[in-house]
């Protein structure tokens, strides 16, 4: 155990690139991904469908589809995953990282009792005995708010509702007491009220157990108040990355800005038309040479179509974005406005 109270990186990706072969040639799914997440911090990864969010998570977890070539470095708690043997890698990830998938209807095995599904990780990695595993599974079921957990242990997934199943998934992800919990669109399939409950649960558990957490979502509202940093993906590239509050207050990349202004605002009159982004996300097979967002960008110039922008740094060094013509830095907001954005 690391006794030092200072935070250190639990997971970091540097220059990570993923390619997948297709009939038309290699597809660049992810390009030059750089980020790191410290202990006890929460990172939000946002982007629209096809931006590469799930692929990023799967590449990290080592469950990417066959044929995905991963270049670059992924470090989990200081260990370079690509240098580990598959067996050791599986052990390390399985023990240290828990994951909750998008669709609770399909992420539980319909023919296995839920108690056993929760226990599985603990029995593999911690060598728990039958009784011990059962006790912990029931404890976790209680923790995630399943009523009379001891009875539910023997139930099958179809006996639960979607929100309950997602809670069960969270329990299963927690069995090894991971250092990092990844929620891959974990609440997307749930209705809004249940979504909030599950997100609050995740946030509480993260704080209580002092874990790190990655919240993957296409919904900015989901990550807004719940993450410390935010990573905006577009077409397989990181377009903006920085402290959540800073990115929300002061988006520099035009894609982030467009996403933010596509969100309904409480202070707008009802039935205000939301701003949309014209065009389609890039086709990975014919990826533009330059900035992936250039074809849809209102401020795109010739250079945007031809040259991939370098990563620049905002006022805060931790705020990074890749844009040739970033939005100008807004003057510091008054405290009232800042509170509103938070």
């Amino acid at each position: 155990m690391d006794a030092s109270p200072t935070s250190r990186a639990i997971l970091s990706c540097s220059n990570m690139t993923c390619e997948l072969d297709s009939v038309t040639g290699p597809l660049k799914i992810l390009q030059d991904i750089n980020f790191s997440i410290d202990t006890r911090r929460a990172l939000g990864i946002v982007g629209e469908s096809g931006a590469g969010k799930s692929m990023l998570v799967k590449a990290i977890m080592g469950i990417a589809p066959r044929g995905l070539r991963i270049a670059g470095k992924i470090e989990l708690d200081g260990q370079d995953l690509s240098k580990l043997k598959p067996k050791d890698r599986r052990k390390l990830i399985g023990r240290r990282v828990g994951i909750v998938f998008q669709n609770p209807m399909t992420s539980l095995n319909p023919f296995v009792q839920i108690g056993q599904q929760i226990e599985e990780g603990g029995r593999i990695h911690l060598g728990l005995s039958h009784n011990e595993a059962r006790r912990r599974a029931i404890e976790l079921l209680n923790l995630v708010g399943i009523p009379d957990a001891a009875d539910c242990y023997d139930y099958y997934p179809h006996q639960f509702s979607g929100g309950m199943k997602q809670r069960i998934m969270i329990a299963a992800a927690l069995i090894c007491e991971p250092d990092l919990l990844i929620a891959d669109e974990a609440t997307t399939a749930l209705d809004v009220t249940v979504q909030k409950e599950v997100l609050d649960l995740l946030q509480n558990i993260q704080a209580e157990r002092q874990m790190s957490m990655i919240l993957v979502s296409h919904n900015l509202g989901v990550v807004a108040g719940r993450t410390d940093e935010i990573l905006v993906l577009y077409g397989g590239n990181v377009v903006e990355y920085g402290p959540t509050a800073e990115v929300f207050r002061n988006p520099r990349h035009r894609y982030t800005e467009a996403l933010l202004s596509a969100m309904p605002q409480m202070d707008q009159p009802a039935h205000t038309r939301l701003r949309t982004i014209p065009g389609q996300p890039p086709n990975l097979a014919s990826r533009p040479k330059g900035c992936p967002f250039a074809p849809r960008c209102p401020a795109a110039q010739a250079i945007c179509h031809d040259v991939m922008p370098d990563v620049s740094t905002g006022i805060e060094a931790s705020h990074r974005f890749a844009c040739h013509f970033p939005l100008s830095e807004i003057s510091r907001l008054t405290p009232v406005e800042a509170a509103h954005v938070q």
Partner: protein
Amino acid sequence: MTDIGNPLGLNPGPDAKLSEIVRAATPWSSKLRLSGGSVSDTVAAIFLVLLILVALFVDFIPGLVSPRLPYGDFSQLPDWSLNGLLGTDDIGRSIFSRVLYGARTSMMIVAISTTIALVAGLLLGMLAGYYRGYFERAVDLFANALAAMPSTLVVLAFVAVTGPSVITIIVVLGIFDIGTYARVAKAGVISQSNRDYVLAARAMGATDGRILLQEILPNLIPALTAVMPTLMAGLIITEGSLSFLGYGIPAPAPSWGGMIASSTDLLSRFPLLILGPVLAIVFTVYAFNTIGDYLAQRLNNRERES
């Protein structure tokens, strides 16, 4: 206070547990009958259970004579005694006794051949579906080759070499069903292995063996249970045809096909001789197929619900 009554007929009380409520809401009758099944499904199920009981315990039926020894005159008409229920055959053996003992022969062939086919087919099919590649192609080729060959002729060829023996028949029939089970298992594994729970298990660090046995295998059970009775019915038919051709179960042992074969010579004068074994085959095959359909429907529904 308005009383809305108790529409579900439940009285959970203030601190009833969820599980108790669920249990109370499940009508007792649904635990007993073949739910969602028709009358013929229930009859078929009862028939098969009786058949299995007879196959297991036919030795202990009081008063039943040996199927191998003559018991009265040849070709006696049926009477109301236990052994005379279906009359006697061409050398005076009790047809009823021979039909019951024939059930044991048929069930034994079905059980052992199916076990061989199921174990080998599952193994090949699951590995082929999980690892794909050349092994999958090899398994496909094997399954297609088996499907292309008429099983009766191949068994005949084997029997011609080894002489009629129960073991040859059981093993060859078993091998013939491997292809079908392998295909069903392979298709199931392919459709399962990209499901989220398999990914979750892999992310959790489960080994391939654990994933195949604990995550995927339980999900193959519906498809396999649906296809199994149909293949079992096929085994009974094939065994019957082999015995009818004289290449099946060797002579004194009772088998339904053999009984039909030995009574064909006398068919024009004593048509009743053939009745017992024919009805036994027809009912058994019908029952297996009915149960197969029922299970396929039931288990599909259940999969969809979950």
